[in-house]
């Protein structure tokens, strides 16, 4: 079990906002009803009901071949659905593909550009195809290029670009038409970590400043978690769960009444800390956790072996564990009805004698939720299959 700290406040707020608007929203920029795509026998997208609300970043999660790209192509009118319907910016993409494509920016999976042209020339072509010309086009191009941080490379040929730069140019390309909706297929694939941060920040900024609605697909779960308001888990052509990360955590059986705290303490003090924690009113249990953050991988692996809580190849624990104070992570289970902030206050009080470094809600990562969701869904499918056979 890994622990990711931070971002608790944002999650809670968007969760309540989402809860307020659970009713079907007729103005949602992207809506599908029983959208289906069959390739011969194979069902790529199976009766998909999806709703992306105005001004949100929606993450479509799924493995390769889960049907994400097919869904996106249907939303853009680039592939005809076998059944069901879709509405994008209020229009049927099959019947009004031009109007939809005019208002929806699209970054394809592994986007490409004409290598014999510069980045700016490539964008100029896109601008022209969108009916932009002259100064208007040049301004839009400069702005888009600046947004993605490619200004100094815009006038070199794109065959000299790295994969990550092409990806960023692709985002600039999608932004040129000043879209109402942005659909990004694997936007952060093959961008370096710092570049990913920049791209994600840009996406948030776009939502903030222009009120753009963003649908992005990804299999990089922690990035999705960090940027998306809501997430849809996609498997076997079906959406098996939609909601904010905490909502999904709850839905797939992760209890949210865990608090994580980090204490600078010797291992000898463990017993003392457990006693202190358990004395707090409302605490059911307290146990040691491990964290991969703030520590070297070797140390984490060693900790994993001692606690026996990590899957994967066993790593030899160093016989002489690092002496002296170190960060010990504790996971505290509270009674479900307790308020989180009240519990945190009480625990902080109880730990007054200890060197407390960090405390907060311990939420499962999207990675864990995703695994469990797909697992549960797979089991259910198996069971249904067995029933069908009987």
């Amino acid at each position, binding site marked *: 079990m890994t622990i990711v700290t931070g971002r608790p406040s*944002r999650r809670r*707020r*968007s969760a*309540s*906002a*989402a809860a307020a608007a659970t009713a079907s929203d007729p*103005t949602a*920029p992207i809506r599908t009803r029983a959208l289906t795509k069959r390739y011969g026998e194979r069902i790529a997208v199976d009766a998909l009901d999806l709703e992306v*609300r*105005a*001004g*949100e*970043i929606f993450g479509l999660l799924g493995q390769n071949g889960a049907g994400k*790209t097919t869904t996106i*192509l249907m939303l*853009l009118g*680039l*592939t005809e659905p076998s059944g069901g319907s879709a509405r994008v*910016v*209020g229009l049927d993409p099959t019947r009004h593909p*031009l*109007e939809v*494509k*005019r*208002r*929806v920016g*699209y970054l*394809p*999976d*592994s*986007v*490409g*550009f*004409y*290598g*014999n042209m510069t980045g700016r020339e490539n964008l100029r*072509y*896109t601008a*022209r*195809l*969108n*009916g932009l010309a002259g100064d208007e086009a040049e301004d839009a191009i400069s702005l888009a290029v600046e947004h993605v941080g490619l200004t100094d490379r815009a006038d070199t040929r794109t065959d000299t670009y790295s994969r990550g730069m092409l990806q960023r140019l*692709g985002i600039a*390309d999608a932004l040129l*038409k000043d879209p*109402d909706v942005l659909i990004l297929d694997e936007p952060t694939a093959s961008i370096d970590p710092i570049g990913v941060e920049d791209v994600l920040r840009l996406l*948030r900024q776009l*939502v*903030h400043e*222009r*009120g*753009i*609605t963003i649908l992005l697909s990804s299999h990089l779960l922690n990035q999705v978690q960090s*940027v998306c*308001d809501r997430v849809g888990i996609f498997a076997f052509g079906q959406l098996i769960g939609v909601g904010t990360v905490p909502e999904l955590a709850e839905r797939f059986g992760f209890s949210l009444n865990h608090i994580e705290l980090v204490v600078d303490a010797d291992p000898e003090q463990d017993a003392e800390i457990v006693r202190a924690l358990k004395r707090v009113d409302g605490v059911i249990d307290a146990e040691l956790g491990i964290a991969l953050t703030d520590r070297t991988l070797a140390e984490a692996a060693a900790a994993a072996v001692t606690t026996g809580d990590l899957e994967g190849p066993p790593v030899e624990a160093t016989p002489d564990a690092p002496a002296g104070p170190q960060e010990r992570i504790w996971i505290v289970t509270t009674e479900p009805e307790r308020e989180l902030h009240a519990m945190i206050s009480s625990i902080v009080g109880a730990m007054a004698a200890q060197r407390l470094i960090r405390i907060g809600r311990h939420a499962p990562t999207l990675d864990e939720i995703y695994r469990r969701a797909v697992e549960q869904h797979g089991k259910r499918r198996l069971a249904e299959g067995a029933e069908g056979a009987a």
Partner: protein
Amino acid sequence: MTADTVTNAPASAPAAADAKAQPAYPHTNGWAIVARKEVADHLHSARIVVLFFILGAATLIPLYFASDTIKSVAGQLTDTRGAFLALFLASSQDYPIPNVITFVAIVAPLLGIGFAFDSINGERSDGTLPRLLSQPIYRDDVVNGKFVAGLAVITVVLVAVVGIIAGFGIVRLGIVPGVDEVIRLLLWLAVTILWVGLWLAFGLLLSVRIRRAANAALVGFGVWALVAIFGQLIVGVVASVIAPWATAATLEQAVALKALSDGILRVLPLTIYQEASAVLMRPDLTTVSTPATIAQLGQLEAQVQGQFLSFDQSLLLIWPHVVALVALMAVCFAAAYIWFMRQEVRA
């Protein structure tokens, strides 16, 4: 992303949507934008330089060797009709070099295939096709634009080459064309563009159907070789299979055999084009059909030599050829078009 964006955004997004609700629709000419970009690409590419030099050099060399022959013959002619066009027909007496129109007939298909074989599959393998198709243009704008661009560039190259030859004739040999000859030359140019257009459409079809550009080029050049080089051989084989009794022992049999093999040969588009261009460039040709009997042969020989057709009569003579070329081009283009429209965007 905070809670206030979630609440603010729905208010701002419909407003933005309203502002765009009545679009000025400038994209009915998407094909023109695609064509413009493609023309620029072609003009900057290495292949146009190569093709231009091949075509230019290979037409000027026979012209250079033939110029002395033309000069001496032209001096003796009292009736100079057709002398200008002889520039395109003359070949050297000393060297085995084909004349200009034969050369164009052989090389033009290469032009067509060379400009089209990677047009769609190239976009596909570069990953630019989904991006292009997600712009507000119709899907057929891509195919149409590329075809128009290829045709435009080839027209430019052909006009340039023909202009060079005509200029050479006027300046060096002092042969000035008459109106009739200019019209014939323009008609020949039009039929030649049609001929290249057929191969361009074929190249486009290959680029839609065959995912790898290299394979498409191989298939294209293979078909070209079949038509241009092996066509004659195959016709001989087919003729002997159909009429194994046929020998050229008597004149009658020889004529019949020739009629048969010409009939088979006419299945090849190359024959159609060559007949059309010969009639257009040679006002003295009064028939395209092979004499089927000795009597017809006799009729043909009895015709007054030096009788010239006017250009409209020549055009009438080869009108079926023109229609056949248009039809072939239309079939190739339609196949490419339909396949492209039905194809998945993703590989």
